[in-house]
């Protein structure tokens, strides 16, 4: 069973190749190829999972070496697949969610003239993502890492005719590449100090050779963190994600919500040994996560574009995952990664259904009352919203977020503050998502619905809604008395978190607080955006409200700052230097030569007496030198 592993990433790649070469002649068949390859891949993934669980390989690690990639001296990263419980979880998330979204796209993208191109890119993405999560060494991981970045670029700019889409795509690629470069340097550092990029050996080696808290793991962790920040859109590299919403909605669902953006979380979880040895950087991860979740939740609160709300929400939710990573709650982070994949994909797909239903309308203030016109979309979206807001007991988000908050509370370093940030974020989350629900689905209809979702859209929505609810039950808090299956499953990968002396009562208390907070958020949203919208409008009209709204709307001014500090100067310099200042040196030499040429030409007067004079002068000079310079 496990030996089928290579097929899991290979199938999407094969789909990509077929679509890239013959896609334009396939017509509607392209969707079958695209979806089919990912579907098959998902089936194989399930088969592999069954095999992995039923007869676990030794040490719960299965590796499959395909071929030698590079072998220079001791540097020999291979094309090596590596399966353990962590990557298995990721593979399942990627293939299953990926398949659902492909299915959704088959209908969603039907009218588009780039139908086959879309599926080609999507297949390439799934393939790359699978390489990323299955990579046995960091270089192969880097290949997948950049590959998904590429697909993200391609799909954000999928509708290439609009320049702003292209700009968003480039921005996404470049900003993530900044992080990637840090990661690349990290790879150099790791290889040269640990002698391998093979993840498992590397971790063993690090534990063996480095002392916890010394400069080596700190540097390595910081560099890896750089990569993760870019890919996962965390402060200060978060600016690309809202703009990335220029891509088709399924793309946002798959890449910018469920899978790619969480790759940073996966990377840090993967290299948890190093982060554990680097307490300073790990704490920075937590702080960055906390800051990001708050900042972007605030931004989500004031957006008009339905997808931008979700985009900020994604950043914020990944902030939670970083928070979890930062406090050493590895499995909590992965747990939230999984549930987030379900409910955020669901939200995006629901939003997509709404957008296509309204003929491409993105502005939530032009929507309204869709509850009746699009009941399936409404119920599914509501499920996702509940899960995101972590409404207690019945949603997956409740369990995963609760675990994170609990872990933050337990953290030895600034535990309370991290928890407080998380809980404040939870309140904001619940407010902004229900603001969205109330504005879009309640109230008066403002735009006519032109299209109802067909079965290929409904099935994924329902499936994801289902997962958004049951996905949390795999890991319940201790006081429920149910086993924390998920954490146990990941035990072989992650070290056991340092258990502070805390009682299940504490956990119960915290869960209760967060349940209350999320419900309160729903009420606040109801009050300000449905029951009494005039209050919120009033608030937004005051000077500080306007300023704050604008500030939040623009994502805390990061774009502005980067534009002024980096992009504009770079562009200005490149333009100004178009003709290459260095060339001036040579132009000057050429000009000087011309000058001397004309000067000397003037000396050739054609007058014989002048020539004789020069001759005489030359004679004088020669004699002078000969006599005086002895």
């Amino acid at each position, binding site marked *: 069973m496990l030996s089928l592993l290579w097929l899991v990433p290979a199938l999407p790649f094969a789909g990509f190749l077929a679509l890239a070469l013959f896609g334009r002649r396939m017509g509607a068949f392209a969707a079958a190829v695209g979806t089919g390859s990912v579907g098959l891949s998902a089936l194989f993934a399930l088969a592999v999972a069954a095999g992995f669980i039923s007869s676990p390989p030794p040490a719960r690690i299965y590796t499959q070496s395909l071929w030698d990639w590079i072998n220079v001296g001791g540097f020999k990263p291979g094309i090596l697949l590596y399966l353990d419980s962590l990557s298995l979880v990721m593979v399942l998330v990627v293939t299953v969610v990926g398949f659902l979204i492909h299915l959704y796209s088959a209908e969603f993208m039907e009218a588009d003239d780039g139908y086959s191109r879309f599926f080609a890119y999507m297949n390439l993405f799934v393939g790359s993502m699978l390489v990323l999560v299955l990579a046995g060494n960091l270089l192969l991981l880097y290949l997948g890492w950049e590959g998904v970045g590429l697909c993200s670029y391609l799909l954000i700019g999928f509708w290439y005719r609009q320049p702003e889409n292209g700009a968003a795509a480039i921005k996404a690629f470049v900003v993530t590449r900044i992080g990637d470069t840090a990661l690349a340097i990290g790879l150099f550092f790791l290889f040269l100090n640990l002698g391998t990029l093979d993840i498992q050996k590397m971790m063993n080696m690090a534990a063996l050779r480095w002392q916890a808290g010394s400069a080596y793991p700190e540097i390595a962790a910081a560099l890896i963190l750089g990569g993760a920040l870019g890919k996962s859109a965390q402060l200060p590299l978060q600016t690309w994600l809202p703009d990335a919403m220029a891509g088709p909605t399924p793309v946002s669902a798959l890449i910018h919500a469920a899978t790619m953006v969480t790759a940073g979380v996966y990377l840090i979880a993967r290299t948890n040994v190093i982060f554990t040895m680097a307490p300073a950087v790990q704490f920075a991860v937590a702080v960055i996560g906390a800051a990001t979740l708050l900042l972007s939740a605030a931004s989500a609160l004031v957006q008009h574009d339905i997808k931008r709300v979700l985009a900020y929400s994604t950043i914020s939710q990944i902030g939670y995952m970083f928070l979890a990573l930062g406090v050493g709650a590895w499995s909590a982070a992965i747990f939230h990664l999984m549930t987030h994949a379900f409910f955020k994909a669901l939200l995006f797909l629901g939003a997509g259904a709404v957008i296509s239903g309204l003929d491409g309308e993105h502005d939530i203030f032009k929507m309204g009352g869709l509850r009746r016109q699009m009941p399936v979309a409404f119920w599914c979206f509501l499920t996702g919203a509940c899960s995101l807001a972590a409404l207690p007991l019945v949603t997956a988000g409740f369990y995963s977020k609760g675990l994170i908050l609990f872990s933050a509370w337990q953290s030895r370093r600034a535990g309370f503050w991290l928890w407080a940030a998380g809980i404040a974020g939870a309140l904001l989350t619940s407010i902004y998502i229900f603001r969205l629900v109330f504005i879009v689905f309640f109230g008066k209809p403002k735009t006519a619905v032109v299209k109802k979702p067909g079965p290929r859209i409904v099935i994924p929505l329902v499936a994801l809604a289902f997962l958004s609810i049951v996905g949390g039950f795999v890991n319940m808090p201790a006081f429920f008395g149910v086993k924390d299956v998920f954490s146990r499953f990941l035990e072989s990968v992650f070290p056991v978190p340092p258990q502070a002396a805390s009682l299940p009562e504490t956990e119960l208390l915290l869960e209760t607080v967060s349940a209350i907070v999320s419900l309160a958020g729903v009420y606040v949203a109801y009050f300000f955006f449905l029951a009494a919208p005039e209050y919120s409008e009033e608030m937004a009209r005051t000077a500080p409200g306007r300023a704050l709204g604008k500030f939040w709307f623009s994502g805390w001014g990061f774009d502005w700052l980067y534009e002024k500090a980096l992009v504009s100067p770079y562009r200005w310099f490149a333009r100004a230097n178009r003709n290459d200042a260095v060339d001036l040196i040579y132009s000057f030499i050429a000009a000087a*030569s*011309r000058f*001397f*040429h*004309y000067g*000397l*030409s003037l*000396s*050739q007067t*054609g007058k*014989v007496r*002048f*020539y*004789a004079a*020069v*001759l*005489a*002068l*030359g*004679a004088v*000079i*020669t*004699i002078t*030198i*000969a*006599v*005086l*310079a*002895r």
Partner: protein
Amino acid sequence: MSGPDFLALLPLVLVSAMPVVVMLAIAFFRDHVLAAALTLLGLLVCFASLPFAASYAPRHITPLLIIDNYALFYMGLIFAATFAVAVLSYSYLGMLRVRREEFYVLLLLAAAGSSVLVASAHFASFFLGLETLSVSLYALVSYPSSREKAIEAGVKYLVLAAVSSAFLLFGMALVYGQLGTMEFSGIAEGAAGLRAASPAFLGAIALIVVGFGFKLAVAPFHMWTPDVYEGAPAPVSAFVATVSKGAVFALFLRYFARVDIHQMGSLVLAATVISIASMFTGNLLALLQQNVKRILAYSSIAHLGYLVVAFLASGALRVTAVSYYLVSYFIAMLGAFGVVSVLSGREGDAVDLDAYRGLSSRRPFITGVFSAMLFSLAGIPLTAGFIGKFYVIAAGAGSALWLLISMLVVNSAIGVYYYIRVIITMYSARAEGETAETALSKGAVSLGGGLLLAALTLGLVWLGVYPSPLVSLIQKTIQGLR
């Protein structure tokens, strides 16, 4: 004078007899073909006598002359170059409305004078050879007496050459006054005896250097060059650029092979200044020049500057470098002026660079030849000029003349600009509506001219690809200088 002496002297005797023979022939049968044929034949005979004479070399013949391999080598070069000039002249003169036959007499006289120069070992023979050469050249330069430019060039050349002769003579007189001998070997001994060279002696040598400098057209004694080259008939320009300079340089080297210039630091300095000045002056003046003959004139100034670099070197490479460079320079200059010559029409020489535009499509052969010559002058591989330049730089590097060869390198780069500018012009398409067509002769290249150009090109490439035989030959000439 013994029998072997006469045999060793045979080339010189022959080449001196030739003008007389041709003159007599003209006196009886005034015929262009006959005169030309006699000239060519005579030069061939002279050339053929060289190996014969070589078997009796080296040999001092009277205090005036020395026949050694070195002298014979340069005589061979002179004969060959004169032969080429004569071939070119034949078709060139065909266009002129003047008496043609005396041209060959003058040409042979000039060749005879040059031959004396390269074999001279004494101020007197030096002076005689030089003046024989010069006076013939005055007449040759202004030979097309109906051309205004030719007369102007003749007058300029005459006045300036006479002045420079006066410098040279005066210098000789002063040297003689101090050392009491006019033989080069005696002067060398005397100079070595002087040790802390006296200012008077250095001044006298400097005057001689001025005389040499004028003939070699190195800066700052170069002013006449472009005007004379432009005004003179193209074959004569070729002669002035090659034989006249080559012979003088050969003598220059012989002279200073005896008198060790490196004992006289100030002269080395003067020569260095002259060399650098020549390179820059020549190349910069040529840079944007539109007149092809003037370009070649300025180029020759620069090339003599390069040669001085080799001259300033010491060691075995010095003579090899100079000789090899001179051979490559001879071929390239003869070829270049040859091209100008065959393209020239009755009204005047083909000097306007614009007229060369688009030549490659109309005259591919000529274009190819000219390109090869220019590439050689620029020192590009596969041509003799490449090896020549390599030798010069090698000689300089071998003597650690880093300043000079750096300057040479810089100047090569400047030089490349105008050489390839000319080439580019030939290969670029003619602009619409231009009618410079008339400026260049449309007539077919004469058989002789064509063969000559082909032979020169072949020689150029041969020396560029397989320099070894010539190097061996040159190395045999070195002993005579020690």
